[in-house]
């Protein structure tokens, strides 16, 4: 008879799927961005949009004007786009640049996740912040207006739908812009400047060239023109603009997805090399 020490073997451990693994990154990256800059940008957007919308709706109610038009007022000026651009730059500039610059991207990518999972997680975290800024204040303003008896519940729900439609489309576009430009640098400051500069320069140049040439199709390259057209349609208003809202939606969604593709292409060619 022989006696030997027992050998303890650990049984297989159940592992969650890729979606849950990716969600772990989304959660961390979302809270990572909860710093003073993004919080201030989002708070500023909420404050201005809510005040502007509630005051516009109140004025429309008193003057017996169009309530839907009042809800849509905020999208008429390029100011809303500028606020979202600030949110995008503060939230999204470092989303990839920080990880590439510090090479901490290695810690994620040496795990059993794909590059597409990592990018999807980054896009989800960045997009969530932009979505909160793009959709949240409009919905809250509609709720406040309904609660104060300025508008009916159905008008408030319609306004929420309009905010969602505009906000989701714009979020896809700005998320693509943020990740694409963030993937091209190791410094979030450069990415932030690039996000701001690219969008503003594009809008300004398109406006000028379109005015000179009289070619209205060029306005599809201008974020503000697209947003205005989409907002008019989303709030059920007749559009005075030269852009077709369906085409504008397609342009922004396709551009956003193409930019995410560009970020993926860029990341797939990045090698985390030495110091």
């Amino acid at each position: 008879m022989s006696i030997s020490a027992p050998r303890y073997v650990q049984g297989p451990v159940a592992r969650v799927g890729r979606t849950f693994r990716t969600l772990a990154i989304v959660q961390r990256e979302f809270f990572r961005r909860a710093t003073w800059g993004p919080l201030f940008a989002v708070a500023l957007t909420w404050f201005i949009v809510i005040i502007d919308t509630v005051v516009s709706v109140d004025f429309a109610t008193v003057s017996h004007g169009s309530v839907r038009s009042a809800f849509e007022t905020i999208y008429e000026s390029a100011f809303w786009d500028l606020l979202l651009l600030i949110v995008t730059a503060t939230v999204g500039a470092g989303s990839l640049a920080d990880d590439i610059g510090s090479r901490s991207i290695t810690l994620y990518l040496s795990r059993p996740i794909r590059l597409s999972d990592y990018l999807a997680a980054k896009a989800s975290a960045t997009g969530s912040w932009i979505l909160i800024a793009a959709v949240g204040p409009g919905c809250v303003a509609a709720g406040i207006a309904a609660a104060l008896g300025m508008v009916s519940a159905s008008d408030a729900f319609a306004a929420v739908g309009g905010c969602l439609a505009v906000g989701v489309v714009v979020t896809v576009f700005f998320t693509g812009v943020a990740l694409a430009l963030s993937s091209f640098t190791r410094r979030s400051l450069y990415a932030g400047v690039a996000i701001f500069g690219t969008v503003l320069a594009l809008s300004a140049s398109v406006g000028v060239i379109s005015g000179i040439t009289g070619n209205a199709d060029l306005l599809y390259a201008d974020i503000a023109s697209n947003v205005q057209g989409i907002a008019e349609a989303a709030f059920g208003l007749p559009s005075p603009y030269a852009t077709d809202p369906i085409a504008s939606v397609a342009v922004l969604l396709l551009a956003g997805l193409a930019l995410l593709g560009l970020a993926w292409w860029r990341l797939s060619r990045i090698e985390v090399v030495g110091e």
Partner: protein
Amino acid sequence: MTGVVDAEAVTKRYGEVLGLNGFSATFSEGITGLVGPNGAGKSTLFRLLAGQLRADAGRLTLLGEPAWGQGEFRRRVGYCPESPALFDWMTGNDFVTTLLRVDGFSRTEATERCARAMAEVDLTADGNRRLRVYSKGMRQRVKIAQCIAHDPELILLDEPLNGVDPVGRAAMSALMRQMSASGRHLVVSSHVLYEVERLTDQIVMIANGQAIAQGDLHRIRDLIDSRPHVIDLESSDPRALGRALSAWDHVVSIEFPEPWHLRVLTRSPDSFYATLPELVLAQGLNVQAVRSADDNLDAVFRYLSEERR
């Protein structure tokens, strides 16, 4: 080749600079030390193994799988990068737990494993502090915690003891030996040679992007027959001892660096150690201490590098 890690003529360029230049080696089971000076290509090899770099040429596999990419087999591998960059906004516990969840563990399982791993690297008390306030040694330890927490088969440790205090080094070394004893394979790189020497005899030596030697440290040393082996002796009468030793064919030279100190250069250390006791007894010589002055990695590395030139 059927090692834990197999490299066959692996080449990696950074533009004009060669990171690895036809590196070929087989890393066997247990602990393997990857040793070489700074800039030799150690970190490049680790990044290739971690799937962070793609080799320009050659074949590199770990655990039988191609090294490039982020496949599911990555959960069988733990990687501790050399870079001190961490997710500084997280606490130590959050850091390890998050990476465990990316490995596929449920939140509960990840929390339990994190607690065990943090205890193993003696960071339990600091687990709830943010990483940005961690010292360099603590950062090294938390990197090791994330690397071992998911119980990988193969653990890649790139300069793991860099920045860790002496007490921490001893504890880390003990932990590495313990992991190896439990059946895990470790590849440990270092340019601090005595650290690796104390961990393992299995060495892969790298210089200028090439493996210049691999295998058992002492066998590597034995291969170096073109160089004399330095042995230091202490004796109350070093001149008498020197006269006796000078009769041996394999003794190349004898020096007297200090009054009680004799330095012998021999081409056959095995014969020297085998016959020295007989000589001492036969001639009634006094020998108080015998030390191998260069049977360590520094000397071996220096010899091998010089030989290749």
